[in-house]
């Protein structure tokens, strides 16, 4: 698996570390215990396309959001997490 970092170009996957699913949204302050539980612990865990956070820890140290297939390991798209967070608002 090779990852095309937007800043560094295509690099080996062992330069990156993995955080996890990028889709759960952090609950607002004052959210209920159940909302926090769902955010921290529950996952869709799909077999197929998956948005996920990776950190280019052995390179530019940027946080990335990668759109990747969990069944084939094919990578569709790599973006900087800061850009994606801004577009989501």
């Amino acid at each position, binding site marked *: 698996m090779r990852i095309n970092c937007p800043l560094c170009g295509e690099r080996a*996957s062992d330069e990156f570390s993995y955080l996890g*699913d990028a889709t759960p949204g952090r609950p607002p302050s004052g959210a209920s*215990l159940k909302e926090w539980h769902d955010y*921290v*612990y529950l996952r869709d865990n799909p077999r197929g396309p*998956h948005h996920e956070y990776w950190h280019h820890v052995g390179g530019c140290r940027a946080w990335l959001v990668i759109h990747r297939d*969990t069944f084939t*390991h094919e990578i569709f798209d790599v973006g900087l997490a800061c850009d994606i967070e801004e577009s989501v608002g």
Partner: protein
Amino acid sequence: MKYSLFNLIRNTFSGHSRWTPAWRDATPKTHYDVIIIGGGGHGLATAYYLAREHGIHNIAVLEKGYIGGGNAGRNTTIVRANYLLEGNQPFYEWSLKLWESLEQELNYNVMMSQRGVINLYHSDAQRDAYVRRGNAMLMHGSDAVLMKRDELRDMLPYLDYDNARFPILGGLMQPRGGTARHDAVVWGYARGADMRDVDIIQNCEVTGIRMENGAITGVDTTRGAIGANKIGLAVAGNSSRLAAMAGMRLPIESHVLQAFVTEGLKPLIDHVVTFGAGHFYISQSDKGGLVFGGDLDGYNSYAQRGNLPMVEHVLESGMAMMPSLGRLRVLRHWGGIMDMSMDGSPIIDKTPIDGLYLNTGWCYGGFKATPASGWCFAHTIARDHAHRYNAPYRLDRFMTGNLIDERGGGPRPNVH
């Protein structure tokens, strides 16, 4: 047919042409009292103990592939009960006790070999942690022996004791731990369940779960709809997909774990040895190959294969512990999909849906748990409440804060 010396001799006279299949290849009926989804070790053991302990015989085990083709055939066959926490050790000790009598129980040779499991330590702090764990094991009625460096050197002369970075100072040994033949375990449970009228249905993938008024009524499969009063999920890495069919989200991520086997050798490693400075564990199969594995690749995956960086990492760990490994050729390596829970411990529980029961979250450790997992899951399904051995393995423990974080890693699957 009962396997015995008498039957072996009798079949010798007919040139071994009259042995019957160990279990029937059943076709689905229209309705069952209990359907177990997943024909792996845990699913088959559950069906076996439902029939054996609870007198329920109208049971089907649905397997999307063939028996022994999933994680039951992909693990590193290690059996042990060397846990620290109150929630874990009684369960795994019960599992080890079931392992010790499994061959007599099933009338099947599962090649259980109590050759001893040794965890190496490399620092004073790690020694202290192992002393604590060993004491916890002894207090739960298990066995544990702290081995000093010199004792260990006599037993395991092939290790690199003077490694500059990770010198081996000693180890914590569980003499009753060891290995078992993984395929034989599923075959033995399948045969035992079949003898008690359980239908084992292969090549039957579940495509939907039927419910009415919040209660289970059956499943849709690639071989038609089948009705059921109760359904137990024991599908390891596919737990989230099956739970989604019932509208549930689980505290589970699916990750790939790789394992390896070398070319066959004369006897070299008499025990199961684990490296304390990295995640590496090795034993020798009865065929002679060295069987070993390491960490997860670390990212969500449903592919039953991993990537090369983890191959390199595992082999580096092996070389640091046992340099003579470098002279061997790796024959095969493969991947299995682990149902990684958020605290690293399993779930055996009822779900909020009436008639739906869940067995998942085995992380790295599903194989050794096979007998107790089936035994406890059968109890939970038949009696509608947990046995005290699986009472801590609740689905709602993430909500109530009663996590069982054996490693102290935190709420993310790839740290366990």
